[in-house]
C-alpha cells in the first residue's frame, strides 16, 4: 500500500497525474470526434453519390486500420511532413506534440465509428419529421438543428456511449508514443519498483473505475435524452 502513497516515496501522485492526462485526452477528443463523425454521417446521408462515396472512403480507411497504426501514421507521418514544411518556411525542425497526435488519431478512429452510429440514427427518423418541418416553413439548417438533431441524439446515444468507453480504453495506446498517461506512468513505476503485476493491476482497476463512473454519467445523460419519451 505504501507504493501507492502520494509524495516522494509512493507512486500515487504519478498515477493520479496519469489518470488526469488519460481523462483530459479522452474529453478533448470527444467533441472533435463527434463533430467530424456527425459531418461524415450527414455526407453519407446525402442524396449526392459523390459525397456519399467520399464519406465511405473515410470510414473504410479509419475503421480498417489498427488504432495503433493510425496513431503511428499520424505521429511519424505528421512529424515528417511538418518538419519538411517548417524547415522550408522557417529553417528549423518541428517537434510534433504527442498529445496532439494522439488526439487527432483517436478522433479519426472515433469519428469513423460515430458516423455509422449517427447514420443508423438518421435512418431511425421518419421522413415525416422533415416534411413536417418544411411544411412549417423551417429552413434546411433550422430543420436539422431544431427538429432532427434532438431526436438524433436520443437515437444515437446508446451507440455513442459504447464508443466513449472504447475511446477511454484506446487512450492507453498513446503511452506508446511517449505521452505520460496512466499506462505510461504505470510502466515507469514498474521499471523502478519491479512490482509489475501489482501496478498493472492497479492501472486496470483505475481504468475500470473510470468506465464505471462513465457508465453512471452516461445513464444520467440518457435519462436526460429520454425526458420527452414519457415512462415506459
Amino acid at each position, binding site marked *: 500500500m505504501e507504493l501507492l502513497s502520494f509524495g516522494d516515496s509512493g507512486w500515487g501522485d504519478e498515477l493520479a497525474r496519469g489518470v488526469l492526462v488519460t481523462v483530459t485526452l479522452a474529453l478533448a477528443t470527444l467533441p472533435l470526434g463527434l463533430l467530424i463523425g456527425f459531418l461524415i454521417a450527414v*455526407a453519407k446521408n*446525402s*442524396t*449526392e*453519390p*459523390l*459525397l*456519399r*462515396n*467520399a*464519406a465511405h*472512403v473515410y470510414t*473504410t*480507411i479509419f*475503421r*480498417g*486500420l*489498427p*488504432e*495503433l*497504426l493510425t496513431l*503511428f*501514421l499520424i505521429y*511519424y*507521418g505528421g512529424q*515528417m511532413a511538418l518538419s519538411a514544411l517548417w524547415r522550408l518556411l522557417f529553417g528549423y525542425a518541428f517537434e510534433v506534440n504527442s498529445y496532439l497526435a494522439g488526439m487527432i488519431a483517436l478522433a479519426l478512429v472515433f469519428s469513423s465509428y460515430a458516423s455509422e452510429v449517427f447514420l443508423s440514427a438518421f435512418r431511425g427518423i421518419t421522413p415525416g419529421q422533415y416534411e413536417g418541418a418544411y411544411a412549417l416553413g423551417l429552413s434546411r439548417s433550422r430543420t436539422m438543428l431544431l427538429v432532427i438533431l434532438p431526436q438524433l441524439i436520443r437515437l444515437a446515444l446508446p451507440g455513442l456511449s459504447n464508443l466513449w*468507453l472504447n475511446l477511454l*480504453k*484506446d*487512450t*492507453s*495506446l498513446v*503511452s*506508446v508514443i511517449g505521452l505520460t498517461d496512466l*499506462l505510461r506512468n*504505470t*510502466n515507469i513505476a*514498474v521499471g523502478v519498483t*519491479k*512490482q*509489475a*503485476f*501489482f501496478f*498493472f*493491476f492497479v*492501472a*486496470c482497476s483505475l*481504468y*475500470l473505475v473510470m*468506465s*464505471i463512473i462513465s457508465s453512471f454519467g452516461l445513464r444520467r445523460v440518457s435519462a436526460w435524452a429520454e425526458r420527452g419519451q414519457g415512462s415506459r
Partner: protein
Amino acid sequence: MTYVDAPSTERPPAAARRRWTGARIAGLILLALWALLGLSIVYMLVVGYDPEKIAKYGPRILNGIWVTLHLVVLSILLGALISIPVAIGRLSHNPIIGGIAFGYSYFFRGTPLLAQTFLVYYGAGQFTDVLKAAGLWMFFRDAYFCAVLTFSLNTAAYQAEILAGAIRSVPSGQWQAADSLGLRPFITMRKIILPQALITALRPYGNEVILMIKASAIASIITVLDLMGQTRYAFSKTYDLQIYIWAAVIYLVTVEVLRRLWEMMERRLTRHLRR
C-alpha cells in the same frame, strides 16, 4: 415577396438536369482530395521503391503477416472455447455463477487490451519463482504465448456477450415448444436454440474477428514480431515512412476482404429469412 412566372403550359417541363449543388461540389472536392492522397501514396511508393530494402525487409514483413494470422486465428478459437462456460455463466440464474461471469466479462471489456497484455506479460515476471516451480515459466517467458493468452481471454469476454445475447434473443416460445415435445434441455439447445442464435450472432462475430485483427497489432508492443512488430522494426532501422504505408495497405486489404467475405457468407446463410 418574389414574383414567380406562371408555368408555361405549352412546353413540356425540361428534363430534370443534374445541377451543381453544394453537395455535389463538396463531394467532388473531397473525392479529388482522396484521389490526390491515393496518388501521392502510390507516387511515394513508386519513387521510394528500393529493391535493397524490399529484399531486406520484405521477407520479414511476410513472416510478420503469417505471425499475425496465426496469432489471430489461435486467439479467436481459444476465445470461442473459453467463451462457452462464460456465456453459460452469463445466462445462469445462480447469482454466484452469474456474478463471476459478469465480473470476468466486465474486467476484460472495461480495461484496455494493452494494459491486460502488460499485466500478463510483465506481471508474470513478478512470479518467476512460482511459475518456474509450476513449470509454466517457459510459457510466460515467451511474448507470443502471453499475447495469445491475453487475446484469448479478452476476446472470450466479448464472444461470451455475443453468444449470451444471441441465445437470449431467441423467443422463449421456442423453449416452451421444445419442452412440450419432450426434448431434453441439451437437445433443445443444440438443435433448436443454437441454430437460431448463431444466425443472429453471425454479424457480431464477424465484427469481433475484424476487431481482433486490428487489436493484434498491440502484440508488437510486447516485442512479438507480428506484421506491426516487423513494421516497427523496419521503421526503426530505416526511418522510412513507406513501411508504415505498406503495413496500412496490408491491414486495410485484409480487413476489407474479410468484411466482404463475411457479408457474402451472411447473405448466403440468411437467404431463408429474406422476404
